């Protein structure tokens, strides 16, 4: 059995707007694109880091009310923005070594589902932010 686990309950902001209470899933991934550096003389493959291509994906309940999901996202499509996320709400305000705050600056939102409706279900949308500069704060 694992000696230390984490019950998913992160806090996040999208373009400085705290949407933690609308979010049901969040994944931020650090990606350093692999560049093949293999050469003759070896049958093994070797890679070095190319450009970064960080991503942030999340699922949010959709709401068209004032200061909610749609109001936050409507003007962000096709632009760059900043995402912050931490494993805990406290870490978002005061990052620490055990509650780091990850910031993805100038990441790009390509598309926004305007309506995603299914009979009898709460409407939710999936977002994908691409690129940007990833930094980690622990203090």
């Amino acid at each position: 059995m694992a000696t230390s686990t984490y019950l998913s309950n992160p806090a996040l902001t999208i373009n400085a707007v705290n949407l933690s209470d609308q979010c049901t899933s969040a994944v931020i991934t650090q990606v350093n694109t692999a560049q093949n550096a293999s050469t003759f003389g070896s049958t093994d493959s070797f890679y070095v880091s190319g450009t970064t291509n960080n991503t942030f994906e999340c699922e949010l309940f959709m709401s068209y009310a004032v200061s909610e999901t749609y109001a936050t996202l409507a003007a962000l499509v096709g632009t760059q923005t900043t995402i912050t996320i931490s494993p805990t709400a406290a870490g978002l305000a005061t990052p620490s070594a055990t509650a780091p705050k990850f910031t993805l600056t100038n990441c790009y939102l390509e598309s926004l589902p305007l309506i995603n409706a299914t009979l009898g279900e709460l409407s939710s949308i999936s977002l994908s932010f691409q690129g940007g500069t990833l930094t980690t704060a622990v203090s």
Partner: protein
Amino acid sequence: MIKIVSPRVGVPGEVFVPEEGVNIEALIAGGFVVDTSAKKSAKTTTDEPKD
């Protein structure tokens, strides 16, 4: 000066200090903050002849 309107951004009424990369125009468009330094439209004056 940008001031906070929505508690989702911070404390309403306080000055908003954005992190790098934050899209201010989108926040204003969404009603989360207001730009209090936005210029007001000039008053229109009429050139009426003085008596």
